[in-house]
């Protein structure tokens, strides 16, 4: 149940609970101390009277005279009850109550005893009169005198009742007030959360540049705000990439489709001889094949974006695959009078088909950009925690700004040379990168003085 409460309600509730417990404890403590204090006061008062009576008894030899003297000196004390007995004989009584029998067993050192007599609430004590010498013959040998006295504590009870009432009212009011304060404190304490919430509400697909206010929130929340900002940053980057990608797709598809459409409609506009039709259809077929390849490349990338499992895992000897691919590209290389060579060896664990595809894309790229009569070199070597496979060609230097973007989808360093001649859609290197990421590896490219070097880094399996 408490899980569904708002944070403010929860804090307010806890705060009120704590206040109630503290205040209640304080109230009980006050009431109890007052009660104990009254007992102490009463005891002192009663002991005081015991002393006084002892003194009078001491000084008075005659029982009759004693009663008169006691009457005289104790008359003004309201609510005080006294009884002096000698054996079974009552020498003096004041107040006219019957004391409980068990009182007779007590002495002045004991705590006063509480009891009720009808309406009255009484607190009393009893003691053997220890007069130094029983002058005046009030006692005869073998007889002792006992003084029993009590105090009406009605007024204390009244006071205590009032005190308890007042304390209860105070505790209730103070608890309510502190609850209110707690609510206010929680609300203002949580204000930064509301600020963040309002900020978060502003974030939409079109407004991904909103950020959490790090400086405006307390230190404890700054960390959270920072993490959220990092998340937003990543989302924004990915989202921008996705947007660019979709607009690139649209653009890449639009050109060939519009070519096809125009060409087809123009050819349909009048009768032509069969050879022309055949030519047009053949050219259309070529364009369609390009489109189909682009779509399957994009699907491949979309799949790897979702983090694919490698279909097969096996030991792949990189130099073997490289040699077999060089065989494939041999004719093109000879055509361009390029020398191809493989240096080094090393094997990795991965999907053979995908690795071949990654290497093939690098070779295709290198051959396309190599100057005639140069060498394209493929090296395999151990490096750090894994194996590097690099393809180096000599060609036009690549601008430093273009380097990191070469692996982006549809990115072409040379916009003007865009596609007609090269039949790739600008996805080859992106696919290579995706394959390497799927293998837990990485890609890198450097270009120094026309020597462009693409490297695939495979991390060795532990």
């Amino acid at each position, binding site marked *: 149940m408490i899980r569904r409460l708002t944070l403010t309600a929860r804090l307010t509730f806890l705060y009120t609970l704590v206040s109630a417990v503290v205040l209640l404890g304080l109230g009980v403590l006050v009431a109890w101390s007052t009660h104990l204090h009254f007992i102490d006061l009463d005891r002192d008062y009663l002991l005081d009277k015991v002393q006084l009576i002892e003194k009078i008894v001491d000084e008075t030899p005659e029982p009759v005279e004693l009663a008169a003297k006691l009457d005289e000196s104790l008359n003004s004390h309201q609510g005080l009850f006294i009884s002096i007995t000698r054996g079974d004989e009552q020498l003096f009584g004041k107040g006219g109550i019957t004391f409980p029998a068990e009182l007779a067993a007590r002495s002045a050192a004991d705590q006063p005893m509480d009891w009720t007599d009808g309406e009255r609430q009484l607190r009393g004590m009893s003691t053997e009169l220890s007069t130094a010498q029983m002058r005046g013959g009030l006692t005869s040998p073998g007889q002792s005198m006992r003084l029993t006295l009590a105090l009406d504590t009605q007024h204390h009870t009244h006071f205590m009742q009032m005190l308890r009432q007042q304390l209860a009212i105070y505790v209730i009011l103070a608890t309510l007030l502190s609850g209110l304060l707690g609510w206010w404190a929680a609300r203002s304490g949580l204000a930064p959360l509301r600020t963040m919430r309002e900020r978060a509400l502003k974030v939409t697909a079109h407004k991904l540049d909103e950020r959490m206010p790090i400086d405006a929130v307390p230190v404890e929340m700054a960390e959270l705000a920072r993490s959220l900002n990092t998340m937003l940053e990543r989302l924004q980057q990915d989202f921008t990439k996705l947007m660019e990608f979709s607009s690139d797709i649209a653009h890449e598809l639009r050109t060939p489709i519009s070519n096809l459409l125009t060409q087809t409609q123009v050819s349909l506009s009048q009768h032509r001889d069969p050879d022309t039709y*055949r*030519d047009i*259809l*053949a*050219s*259309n*077929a*070529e364009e*369609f*094949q390009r489109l*189909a*390849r682009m*779509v*399957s*490349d994009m*699907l491949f990338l979309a799949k790897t974006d979702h983090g694919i499992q490698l*279909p097969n895992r096996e030991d792949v000897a990189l130099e073997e695959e490289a040699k*077999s*691919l060089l*065989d*494939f*590209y*041999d*004719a*093109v290389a*000879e*055509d361009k009078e390029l020398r191809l060579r493989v240096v080094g060896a090393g094997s990795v664990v991965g999907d053979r*088909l995908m690795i*071949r*595809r990654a290497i*093939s894309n690098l070779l*295709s790229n290198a051959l396309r950009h190599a100057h005639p009569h140069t060498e394209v070199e493929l090296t395999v070597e151990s490096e750090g925690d894994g194996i590097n496979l690099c393809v180096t060609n000599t060609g036009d230097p690549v601008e430093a700004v273009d380097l990191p973007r070469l692996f982006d989808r549809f990115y072409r360093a040379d916009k003007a040379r865009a596609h007609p001649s090269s*039949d*790739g859609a600008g996805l080859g290197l992106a696919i290579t990168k995706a394959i390497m990421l799927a293998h837990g590896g990485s890609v890198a490219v450097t270009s120094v003085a026309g020597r462009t070097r693409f490297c695939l880094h495979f991390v060795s399996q532990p």
Partner: protein
Amino acid sequence: MKILIVEDERKTGEYLCMGLREAGYAVELLNNGVDGLHQALEGDHDLIILDVMLPGMDGWQVLRGLRAQGREMPVLFLTAKDHVDDRVKGLELGADDYLVKPFSFSELLARVRTILRRGRSGMEPTTLQVADLELDLLRRRVTRAGKRIDLTAKEFGLLELLMRRKGEVLPRSLIASQVWDVNFDSDTNVIEVAMRRLRVKVDDGFECRLLQTVRGMGYVLEVPEHS
């Protein structure tokens, strides 16, 4: 040779039908799985081309139904989804091949021919011959009109493929896969260059050009009709 196509996409079905008919096959087209299975059980088709996504009953179910009845005719799957799982599933169920849409017709035709050829094993020839071009598989030698032609190993492989399947238009992807074991979309330019070089060696200086490019489709080795 009778082929049954079960494909619910009308245009695709009709064009496949037309293409395969023109390639010399007797073709029957159905557009849903239930009819497809029924017809496949009734008829005596040499090959069934099955779309995976079909109304009524999907391609997997049709195949299962066929195999459950003990019908062992080859089945080629067509699918729009390229999932390794699907491929594995198809092959486990006893499909013979698997093509992902969009595919080129020449690719399909080449595969159909491969499947249909499989059953007919005869004596493996030691020499292949087309017109005056001869390829000796044992001695790995090629001669044209009695004149020796020097080929690299891969060129020999390429020519062998074209001669074995003379008269068939072979798409570039099939050539890349069969000769170089490149089973993914690659620079098709590579095949063009290789073919051009092979053509120089095989056809240059001869009246009759055997190696022909079929634009938009692929390559074929055959004696031209007009000569």
